[in-house]
């Protein structure tokens, strides 16, 4: 088919399109996150002492850090879906923020950790369960980001997939943080990072395959 014929075909019966809006996509993600959190808490899965703990430096660090990371990563992911955007800087910012949040864990203290060995503090069996829960909880957000990415036109699908994976992982971790009974920052840093890393790897592997410009 010649270019002229193709152009004629494409312009014939042209229908109006709804422009992509970053704010609409951000609102969609926010609504999904809120619905998932609401459902999670509605099922009675929140830790029982949350009322007393919520104002403690540890809980503020955990929830505040994860909320901040989730917000930044979702913004980076949505912005990267535009054809003219590059996710590189946003990803650097997200990694730096993640590093800062982890370092911040050193200053909030490990209330229950004194006198415990490293293995006790890490509690591998429980930790693996935590990481698995984070992966499961991040699936709806990853699916939504995949749909948004597919409908958009990222010029760097691999970077966008990475940003989407981190965003979905941190969202899942944020929701899980409401039920996680462990109060040790080392445990949080290790197993939450592991859960987020698995989600990120999955997104990096899966999302570019499902995408075609």
């Amino acid at each position, binding site marked *: 088919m010649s*270019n002229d014929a193709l*152009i*004629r075909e494409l*312009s014939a019966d042209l229908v*109006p*399109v709804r*422009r992509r809006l970053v704010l609409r996509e951000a609102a969609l993600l926010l609504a999904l996150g809120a619905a998932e959190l609401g459902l999670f808490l509605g099922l009675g899965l929140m830790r029982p002492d949350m009322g007393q703990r919520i104002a403690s430096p540890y809980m503020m660090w955990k929830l505040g850090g994860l909320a901040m990371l989730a917000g930044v990563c979702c913004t980076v992911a949505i912005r990267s879906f535009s054809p003219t955007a590059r996710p590189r800087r946003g990803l650097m910012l997200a990694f730096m923020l993640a590093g800062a949040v982890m370092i911040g864990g050193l200053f909030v203290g490990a209330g229950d950790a004194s006198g415990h060995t490293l293995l006790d503090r890490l509690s591998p069996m429980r930790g693996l369960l935590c990481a698995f829960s984070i992966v499961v909880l991040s699936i709806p957000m990853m699916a939504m980001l995949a749909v948004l990415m597919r409908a958009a*036109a990222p*010029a760097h699908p691999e970077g966008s997939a990475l940003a989407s994976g981190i965003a979905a992982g941190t969202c899942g971790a944020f929701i899980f943080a409401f039920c996680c009974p462990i109060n040790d920052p080392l445990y949080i840093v290790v197993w939450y990072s592991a859960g987020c890393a698995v989600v990120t790897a999955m997104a990096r592997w899966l999302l570019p395959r499902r995408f075609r410009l």
Partner: protein
Amino acid sequence: MVAAQNGHGGAYRRLLGEISGWLHRYFQRRLPHGDVEDAVQETLLAVHRRRHTYDPRYPLGPWLASIAKRKWIDQLRSLGRRPTEELTDDLAVGDHEASVTSASVLASLLDNLRPAQARIIMLVKIQGHSIEDASRETGLSASAVKMNIHRGLARLTALLEKTEDVE
């Protein structure tokens, strides 16, 4: 593009026409000749499928360039995946050395003539046009064409007689 997003087919056709020319130049500098058309059409399709992602607050150029770049990368990847076969001696084609040498010698000989003579000899004696055709092509009269051929050939003969190493 804004009109196209609102469903204006005529504006969209004009836009795609202009984009097509730009893409042609873009891919001609970056891809083998045979892949240019494919890349242009693939990019036009991508522009059509993703036209809702264009934000009218920003210029169209960078948006289009990033889609074209992505398509260029895809095309390069497909080139890399394309099966290739090593050329063996069995596939060697016939020797064109004599033709190439003749063309080269002829071109250098014609360079010694006046441009009008060289052009007329090229038209009549090499490309096989008639005197009338050559007359129409060059805007000279038929007798002037014949005169140029006669003088040009005479000069070429003289040149060849002076040159010893031209076969």
